[in-house]
């Protein structure tokens, strides 16, 4: 047996950006399949549209900056941003909101700061918040899970809904849409109902919302794949989910009538997706191990606080953006001691 002679060191192949991004895209597949199963073609149409816009925007900005275009497109980071955005927004979002969101993400949040590696904020989440704050009604109109069993929207009908806003004849929004589990829980709690009464509704599954918990399971599978492939480490997801569970658990133990079971928090909104795919963004998250624990746990606590007392039903995007600002400071104070230097002499 003969092969090329390679000199030492014989380490593993270094990870390249495009490899990492492709693995992330691969890991998103199960969640996307489950979403498409429950919420229809809209998710896939949004992914295609967002990807198209994001790549085009990235290429145009690179041309404007007189930088080589191919490496920026070829690292698939714009595609990951687009897919993360597309699976966070409702599958019926009008096409031009996706367009605006992706332009905001790529041009303002990513490229104005210098491109991949320089953006202080997670572009997909910044775009999500931009569209949510600007167009709250469209962004909180979700299809009811399983509604497609009664009123199947064909691919062509989904396409027409997204591009012209026209529903198939004989259908009303009221028949198609339903509050998301977090929205429902929050609205009913505000009306003074107790958890048991709220959970009578057919919207609920075993832990979170029907359909929604399976979407979360899909993303959990992808997240475990990323951990197995060592694309991400356990620090941020574990800290975030644990903090969210502990905070929710404390309040649930104190008053189980008005605070949902901790598993509800994990499996209802974007908590799982956020913990494995969004908070772990290698650019905008903390880089030191201790810092990542603090970063993740703070996101978990913020998610609980905003969901419980804040103005919007889900909170992952806001929590991630808030901690993105804090990440450089956290990194600064959690620098590990340099080997061979005394602690107090460590150059901070």
């Amino acid at each position, binding site marked *: 047996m003969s092969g090329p002679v390679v000199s030492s060191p014989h380490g593993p192949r270094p990870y390249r950006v495009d490899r990492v991004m492709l693995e992330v895209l691969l890991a998103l597949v199960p969640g996307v399949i489950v979403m498409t199963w429950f919420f229809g073609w809209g998710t896939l149409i949004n992914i295609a549209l967002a990807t198209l816009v994001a790549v085009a925007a990235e290429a145009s900005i690179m041309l404007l900056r007189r930088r080589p275009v191919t490496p920026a497109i070829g690292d698939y980071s714009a595609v990951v941003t687009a897919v993360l955005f597309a699976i966070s927004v409702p599958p019926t979002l009008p096409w031009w909101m996706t367009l*605006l969101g992706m332009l905001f993400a790529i041009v*303002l949040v990513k490229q104005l700061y210098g491109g991949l590696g320089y953006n202080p904020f997670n572009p997909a989440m910044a775009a999500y918040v*931009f569209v949510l*704050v*600007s*167009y*709250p009604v469209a962004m909180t109109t979700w299809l009811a899970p399983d509604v497609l069993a009664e009123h199947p929207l064909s691919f062509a009908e989904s396409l027409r809904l997204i591009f012209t806003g026209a529903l198939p004849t004989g259908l009303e929004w009221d028949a198609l849409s339903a509050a998301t589990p977090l929205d429902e829980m929050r609205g009913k709690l505000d009306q003074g109902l107790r958890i048991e009464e709220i959970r009578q509704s057919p919207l609920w599954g075993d832990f979170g919302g029907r359909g929604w918990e399976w979407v979360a399971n899909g993303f959990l599978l992808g997240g475990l794949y990323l951990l197995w492939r060592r694309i991400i480490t356990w620090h941020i997801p574990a800290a975030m989910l644990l903090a969210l569970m502990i905070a929710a658990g404390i309040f649930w133990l104190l008053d189980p009538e008005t605070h949902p079971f901790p598993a509800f928090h994990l499996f209802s909104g974007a908590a799982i997706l956020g913990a494995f795919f969004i908070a772990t963004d290698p650019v905008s998250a903390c880089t030191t191990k201790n810092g990542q624990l603090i970063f993740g746990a703070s996101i978990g606590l913020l998610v609980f606080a905003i969901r419980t007392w804040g103005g919007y039903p889900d909170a992952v995007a806001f929590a991630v953006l808030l901690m993105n600002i804090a990440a450089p400071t956290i990194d600064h104070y959690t620098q590990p001691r340099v080997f061979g230097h005394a602690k107090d002499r460590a150059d901070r």
Partner: protein
Amino acid sequence: MAAPQPYGSIIGDGLWRNNQALVALLGLCPLLATTTSATNGLGMGLATTAVLILSNVTVSLIRNLVRPEVRLPVFVLVIASFVTTVELSMQAYFYELYLVLGLFIPLIVTNCAIIGRAEAFASKNRVDRALLDAIAMGIGFTLALVALGGMRELVGQGTLFYQANLLLGEAATGLSLSLGAGFQGALVAILPPGAFIGLGLLIALKNLIDARNRRRAAARAAHPELPQAPASGAIAPG
């Protein structure tokens, strides 16, 4: 003391080179908070300009009477008196606009741009220069406010100079521009984040223009045989 600044340079500083909103970044509180529309920006800018003119002239007049140790409290008192005057006048003549701008009119007192000009310019210069400086700085500030307000209004609401009649009388109703009722604006532009993003874009635009002017000036200096561009007044690099 160095030779007094020439008049042209004072105007250039106020309108462009040392624009209080885009370069000095002073008076950010009213700049960010009240520029939800071009009309609001114009109203706020004019009120600030009025206070700035009155305070600069007064400070310049009393500059040799006030001991340096107490000059800042005296400046604040002067500014506060004029702000009260302007506030009461707005309440009398532009009541609707006064309601819209609300708390930010009395807060002109704390606008750093005004005390900044009093301290940095009026207290060291003769009345004529102080007056010119106040007018130039005020107009520069107002233009930035109107530009930012117009941007945010256009993106967020699809209108320009909506309700201009509140400020400029019924004749100005025709000034209002609308992109049509079907326009779904990005609400974020009118909310506070939009102010920060908009201001950042305006500053970037100004820096872009400056950089281009500098490049052109450098090119002209390197090739004196090329035809010289006509002096472009305030924008010419100093």
